[in-house]
C-alpha cells in the first residue's frame, strides 16, 4: 500500500508561453488579480493589524491580557476544545454508521449532515433556541449558560469529523479487518488495532478544522448565549462589544490573536495532511479537507 504515489490530481507544469490567455496579457491579468485581492482582502486585514498596534506593543499586550478579554478568550478556547472532543467521538460513530450500516433513508440522512454548514449561522442559533431556549417544549432551557455555547458550537462543527473520516472509511481496505477477525480478534480489538489507526488522520484533521471554525464563531452564538461578560461572552462577541464602545484598538488586538490562531490551525492541517499520512490515503485526506473547508464556510464561517 505504501508504494502507491499520492493520488492527488496531477499538477501539470504550467506552460511558459504556449496557450494564450484571453484578451489581456498575463502581466495585466496578474496585476488585476493582485489589485483585487489587495483591495478586498489584504488592505482590510492590514488595517486591523495596524490598528491593533496603533498604541504600541504594550497596549496590544494589555488589551489581549485584560480581564474581560482573557476571560472571553479562555472561554472560547475551552468550549471549542470540549466541542471538538464531543464531535470527534460522535462524528466517527456517525461516519461509521453512514458507511458500514444499511438502513432505509440513509441517503437523506447523509445529505442532511451538511445542513449545519449550509444553514446561515443566525438561523442555526434561532433554530437551537426554539428547542433549548426559554420556551423549550421539552423543558430544557440552556439559554444564557455556557452549555448553550457548547450546544451551538457542536451544531456548527458537526460535519467536520464526519466528512473527514467518511472518505477514509469508504476507501479502507476491508481485507485487513477480515484477516484480523479470522485470526480470532474480537470486534473491539479489531476496531482498536486496525480500524481506528486507519481513521485517525481523518479524525485529527476534522478536529483541527472544527477547532479553527469554533474559535471565530459569532452568528449562532449571539441569540442563545446571552453575551454576559465573564460568563458567556466569547471572543467574537467581545470584539463586537469593544467596537460598539469605541475601543477599536482593543477589538483589533483580540482580532489579531484570533486570526493568528486560525491561520496557524489551517496551515497545521495542511502540513498534517501531507506528512501524517502516506500512500493513497494522503490524496483522499487532502481532497476531503479541501472539500470540508469550502463547505464549512457556506452559512458563515470563521
Amino acid at each position: 500500500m505504501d508504494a502507491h504515489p499520492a493520488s492527488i490530481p496531477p499538477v501539470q507544469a504550467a506552460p511558459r508561453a504556449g496557450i494564450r490567455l484571453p484578451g489581456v496579457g498575463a502581466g495585466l491579468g496578474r496585476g488585476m488579480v493582485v489589485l483585487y485581492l489587495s483591495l478586498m482582502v489584504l488592505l482590510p486585514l492590514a488595517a486591523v493589524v495596524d490598528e491593533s498596534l496603533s498604541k504600541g506593543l504594550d497596549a496590544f499586550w494589555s488589551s489581549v491580557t485584560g480581564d474581560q478579554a482573557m476571560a472571553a478568550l479562555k472561554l472560547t478556547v475551552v468550549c471549542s476544545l470540549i466541542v471538538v472532543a464531543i464531535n470527534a467521538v460522535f462524528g466517527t460513530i456517525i461516519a461509521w454508521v453512514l458507511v458500514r450500516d444499511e438502513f432505509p433513508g440513509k441517503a437523506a440522512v447523509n445529505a442532511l449532515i451538511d445542513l449545519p454548514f449550509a444553514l446561515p449561522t443566525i438561523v442555526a442559533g434561532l433554530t437551537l433556541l426554539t428547542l433549548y431556549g426559554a420556551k423549550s417544549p421539552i423543558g430544557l432551557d440552556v439559554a444564557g449558560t455556557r452549555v448553550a455555547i457548547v450546544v451551538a458550537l457542536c451544531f456548527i462543527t458537526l460535519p467536520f469529523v464526519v466528512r473527514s473520516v467518511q472518505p477514509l472509511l469508504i476507501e479502507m481496505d476491508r481485507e485487513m479487518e477480515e484477516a484480523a477477525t479470522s485470526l480470532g480478534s474480537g470486534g473491539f480489538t479489531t476496531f482498536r488495532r486496525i480500524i481506528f489507526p486507519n481513521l485517525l488522520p481523518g479524525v485529527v484533521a476534522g478536529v483541527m478544522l472544527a477547532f479553527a471554525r469554533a474559535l471565530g464563531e459569532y452568528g449562532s452564538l449571539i441569540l442563545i448565549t446571552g453575551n454576559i461578560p465573564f460568563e458567556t461572552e466569547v471572543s467574537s462577541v467581545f470584539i463586537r462589544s469593544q467596537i460598539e464602545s469605541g475601543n477599536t484598538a482593543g477589538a483589533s488586538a483580540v482580532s489579531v490573536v484570533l486570526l493568528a490562531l486560525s491561520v496557524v490551525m489551517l496551515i497545521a492541517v495542511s502540513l498534517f495532511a501531507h506528512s501524517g499520512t502516506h500512500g493513497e490515503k494522503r490524496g483522499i485526506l487532502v481532497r476531503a479537507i479541501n472539500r470540508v473547508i469550502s463547505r464549512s464556510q457556506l452559512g458563515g464561517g470563521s
Partner: protein
Amino acid sequence: MTPTAPAKWGLRGLAFGYLGLLLLAPVGMIFYKTFEHGLGPPVDAMTSPEALHAIQLTLLMVAVAVPLNTIFGVGCALLLVRRRWWGNSIVDGIINLPFAVSPIVVGLSLYLLYGNTGWFGPTMAEWGIQVLFSWPGMVLASIFVSLPFVVRETVPVLQEIGTEQEQAASTLGANGWQTFWRITLPAIRWGVAYGVVLTVARVLGEFGAVTIVSGSISGETETMPLFVAKAFEQFQEEAAYAGAIVLALLALTTLLLMSVGGRKAKASSGGSLPAAELAVSTSNTKEGS
C-alpha cells in the same frame, strides 16, 4: 468486520440520538413553530415592507458580489494553473485567508478602512460616497467572505482537463478569447457553477460581517439574516421564524444543487474531481473512483 447485533444497534442509537437531538429536532421545531397557525402569519410577516426590503437588499448583495467574485475567480484560477509565476503560491495563500477570518473581524476591518476616522473614510466622505452603514460597505463585506469559492472550485477542474485541447485550438489559429469561450469554459463550466452556488449561499446568509458594517437600520440596511436577528430581539417571533424558514429553505436548495452539480461535474470529467466528491460521499459507493 460485521459488528454483533448489540454493537450495531448501539452505534445506530448513538448516531441517530445525537443527530436527532442536535439537528433534526431543532430544525423540525422551527418549521413547526412557523406553520403552527397555518400559512397566513409567515406569509404576512414576509410581505411586510421591512421584510420585502430585506429580501431586495439581500438580492442586491448577490447581484453585485457574485458576478465580481466569479469573474475574478475564473481569471485567477486560469493564471494560477496555466501560468508559472513566482507569486502564485502567495496569491494562493491569500485567497484562502478569508476562510481563516472570523466574520466579526471582517466587519471590524472594513469599519477601520471606511469609518469616519478610517484610512479611506474621510476621503470617501469628501467625494460624497457613503460606504459604511450603507450598501457599498455591505457589498464589500459579502465579497470578502465569499471570495475563495469560485477559485477553489475552478482550480482543480482546470488541472484535471489539462492543456491538450487548448493547445490544439491555439495551433489551429484560435485567439485567446476564442479558446476560452469555445474550449476552456465549456470544460470547466460545472466546476465554476458549483463555485457560484457556494458563493451565492454564503452571500445570502452572511451575518457577522454585515452586522458590523451595516448598522442594521430597519428598511434601509437590513439583509435577511439581520432582519431575522432584529425581529427576534424585538419579540416579533413570527417574523423571525418566517425569515429563518426562508433562509433555511434556501440552504436546503443549496445542498440539493450541490449534490446535482457534483454529479454533473463528475459525469463530465470521468471521475476524480474534488467538486464531484460530494456525490461520491453522498452515495457512499466506490463507483468512478
